[in-house]
């Protein structure tokens, strides 16, 4: 009983047309069909945040959405943030502030941070911690992640202001 559907999605600005089984999770579609393996699966039930992507600008669990539901949507994954020659300010900040060790949680942290910095005041570290509470990290103890987000936010918001 495999129910196949044609979908059109835009991922990091690139349009894709594919056929998917109804039950294919969005995260699996991104990883397996589009070979964008920056998005990770850590728990497959929505609590760890490693699978977080942006859908029409809002952070979303790609393990809790079917690819067929993303038809017509604009998706942003970590691959779209920047590359080695041109790091996104958040990526640069995670590097400068040692915000990652194994890196498994990092793509989810970055995508959540993009949403937070764009849409929430983040007036202090407490607010950053609350905003990141849906992204688990086993390595860092979170402090450097909070610092990375705080410093990146300063940078990104100054740029916008000027």
């Amino acid at each position, binding site marked *: *009983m*495999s*129910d196949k*559907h044609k979908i059109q999605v835009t991922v990091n600005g690139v349009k894709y047309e594919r056929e998917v*089984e*109804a*039950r294919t*999770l969005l995260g*699996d579609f991104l990883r397996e069909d589009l070979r964008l393996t920056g998005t990770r699966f850590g728990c*497959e*039930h*929505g609590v760890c*945040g490693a699978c*977080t992507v942006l*859908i029409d600008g*809002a*952070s*979303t*669990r790609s*393990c*809790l*959405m*079917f690819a*067929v*539901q993303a038809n017509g949507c604009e998706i942003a994954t970590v691959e779209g943030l920047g590359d080695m020659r041109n790091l996104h300010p958040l990526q640069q900040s995670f590097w400068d502030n040692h915000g990652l060790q194994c890196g498994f949680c990092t793509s989810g942290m970055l995508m*959540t941070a993009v*949403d*937070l910095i764009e849409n929430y005041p983040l007036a202090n570290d407490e607010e950053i*911690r*609350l*905003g990141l*509470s*849906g*992204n688990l990290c086993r390595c860092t103890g979170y402090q450097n992640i909070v610092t990375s987000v705080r410093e990146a936010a300063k940078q990104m918001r100054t740029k916008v202001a000027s």
Partner: protein
Amino acid sequence: MKPPAFKYIAARTVDEAVKHLATHGEAAKILAGGQSLTPMLNFRLLHPEVLVDINPVKELDFISERNGGLSIGALTRHRAIENSKLVREKYPLLAKAAEEVGHLAIRTRGTFGGSLAHADPAAEFPMIALLVDAEMKVRSAAGAKTVKAKDFFVSYLASAVGEGEILTEITLPALPARSGWGFHELSRRPGDFAIAAVAAIVKMDGGKCAEARISMAGVGPTPLRAPAAEAFAKGKALDEAALKEIGKKAGESADPSNDVHASAEFRRHVVGVLTQRALKSALDLAAKS
């Protein structure tokens, strides 16, 4: 694990949705936010043959004012409620509850109606719906019915939304004039399910309590009101001693169970403490209003 195979149908209107549900009967489940359903599919706890996706049903995504309270479409996202200017100004209790639901990404997709229909007794929104005596509009191919909150939450993960039915709209009545509200939740980490939560509304008159409402989450098979505590509060000056007694009575109304997160005894104790805090917050706000 990966979800089992199912047939996927996208509904664009409520009429289409109820028609599909009527066609497929118990083989079909509604897919709304998917933040509770999809984990169950990923764990293979459920094997629905058909998923009716109602995310395209835009007519169910709205927040509007009605008779001094709010009318909210079932598909309205938690995130929209959290950020809504109308909700923050007219029904801040609801915005506060929305902030506590899960995490940001969960709130992006999760829906108000979904949370109510899922009827997790530890969830924030069922507790609020019961507190304010919300009314739920439920549609099927046969027509529509209105269910009051006290009849809506039937048991653990069971609501009054039956086979072939879909929750479409929730009406939150106006809160009593010059009343205050309080909301306190205890969880191990922000975003975790509540060990227990209490929400309260208090209206004072000449230094004595004219009306008190107390609703509890995480301490029974459904959200619970605390009628004995509410009755005790009426007519009293809500000093420390009275608040303590009200908290104790609220704890006695609770029906908590033991699980890996907390013992029943601890939950009952927590209810007592949170009730006092919620009432104090409510008194503060009532004094300012």
